[in-house]
């Protein structure tokens, strides 16, 4: 245990603890990282050069990395073959609106699931992540029908609203919130809805919150702060 504790989490474990081996290990780490980057970059570089080649040159051996002649007109053709500006604007609008709504939904849902009390929260959590199990192909037709009934065909809300529900993001944020260290999971009063909710008037602590004066910040002494995870069933470990 003690020898391996010293080892960096790099590949050659048998060299652990030998000081002279450190540069070698660093070298190996760089090599591995370079390999990973190469695997990602090579196809992208290929795509970039292919975009400037003629179709003929794409299909010649050996693979040439620099096109014989830079065919910039490929880009002009692609640009004019479809109404590219329109497509681009559409993408920007649906992306900004969609990801904005998803962000709000994800954070709110995760916050509620982690920091606010409610009976059977685990079932609600399951209801959220079970959405990840419904294949996209299943939802297309019923959603198209609904969007059509709402008169939203060929509108931005017709694309954005059906996609504004978020399961993945809520799950990710929940895990993130749950792994916050205990100290920082007590948000300052100004930023935490749960906190401000409880800081109303009286001195009664939040529901289900045994106040722990030993660990709480000054502000929580008069019961104005709930400790981080209101009645979260998973936090009893530590």
């Amino acid at each position, binding site marked *: 245990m003690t020898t391996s504790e010293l080892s960096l989490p790099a590949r050659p474990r048998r060299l652990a603890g030998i000081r002279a081996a450190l540069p070698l290990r660093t070298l190996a780490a760089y090599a*591995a990282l370079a390999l*990973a980057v190469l695997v990602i970059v090579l196809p992208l570089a290929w795509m970039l050069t292919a975009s400037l080649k003629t179709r003929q040159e794409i299909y010649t051996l050996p693979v040439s990395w620099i096109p014989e002649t830079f065919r910039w007109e490929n880009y002009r053709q692609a640009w004019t073959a479809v109404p590219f500006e329109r497509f681009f604007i559409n993408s920007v609008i649906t992306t900004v609106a969609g990801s904005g709504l998803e962000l709000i939904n994800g954070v709110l849902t995760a916050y509620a699931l982690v920091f606010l009390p*409610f009976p059977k929260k685990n079932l609600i959590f399951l209801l959220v992540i*079970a959405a*990840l199990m419904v294949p996209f*192909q299943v939802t297309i037709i*019923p959603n198209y029908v609904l969007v059509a009934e709402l008169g939203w065909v060929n509108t931005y809300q017709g694309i954005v609203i059906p996609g504004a529900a978020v399961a993945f993001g809520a799950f990710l944020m929940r895990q993130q919130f749950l*792994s916050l260290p205990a100290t920082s999971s007590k948000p300052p009063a100004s930023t935490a809805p*749960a906190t401000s909710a409880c800081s109303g008037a009286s001195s009664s602590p939040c*529901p289900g919150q045994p106040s722990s004066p030993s660990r709480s910040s000054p502000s929580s002494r008069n019961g104005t702060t709930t400790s981080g995870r209101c009645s979260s069933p998973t936090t009893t470990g530590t």
Partner: protein
Amino acid sequence: MAHAAPHPAAPRRFQRLLPYLLFLLFIAPNITLLILFTYRPLVESIRLSFYDWDLISPQKTWVGFENYSDYFTDPTSRYIIRNTLVFTAATVGTTMAIGLGLALLLNLRLRGRNAARTVLFAPYVLGGAAIGIIWLFIFDPRFGLVSALLGRLGLPSPNWYNDPNWAMPMVIIVYTGRTSATPPSSTSPASKPSPANFTKLPASTARAPGALLARHAPQLSPMTFFLLVTTMLSSMQAFDIISVMTAGGPLDATKTMVYQVYEEAFVRFRVGDASTVATVLFFILLGVTLLQVRFLERRVNYG
């Protein structure tokens, strides 16, 4: 609190209920949208699995469990289930393993690791269809980069597109290449040396050997749990790369359940059969996820 009555009891009760109300307020938009655009279609799909319908005609024929008995007696569906499991096991396994390795590498104080992190995130940005098309060129048996590399080693290039034995590995490689770079780069924040940071950095490391890992495994486990559940769910529903690269072929060799759903519904117009596969797939996914939540999350340490 404006309507705090002279009663002392009223504001207190209101105050006690407020967090519960906030909970409902916070989850309401998301849950409403999920019910409307995910669960309503799911129920509809389950209902349609008891019918024969061609997607167009106004007439739907009730057939009871016939679609299911057909599905479970058809050897093709067994082959497709097997494909789905092979694909999922291979991609989830490699994604977690490579993701772990990369996360550990990025956790070392190497020069240029932020640049590397950015590069590794690129496939996630590009989208499956684009990745699939690029890699189709790269796997081209005659002109592709892969065959050029193999040729340099003196090896013949397999016919990736047409050989049922090689199409699945190709799809798995491309899919894993896209996903495995994602866990470390998407879950790791910009590098600031802080303990909180470290807990997020080696995203998928909790199950790996090594004392350093063992020491930090508790902090890593929430993210590992998340990655395991989500990569499994997305692998079992992988569609775009398969659709672009092989369209389920050759000879169904890369056809997975979700591709079967697509094909039955939108190519063959057999909505009943498509819904049957979708329903079976949903319950498999639900079962596996419930098992993970039940037995794995109990061991997850939420500090």
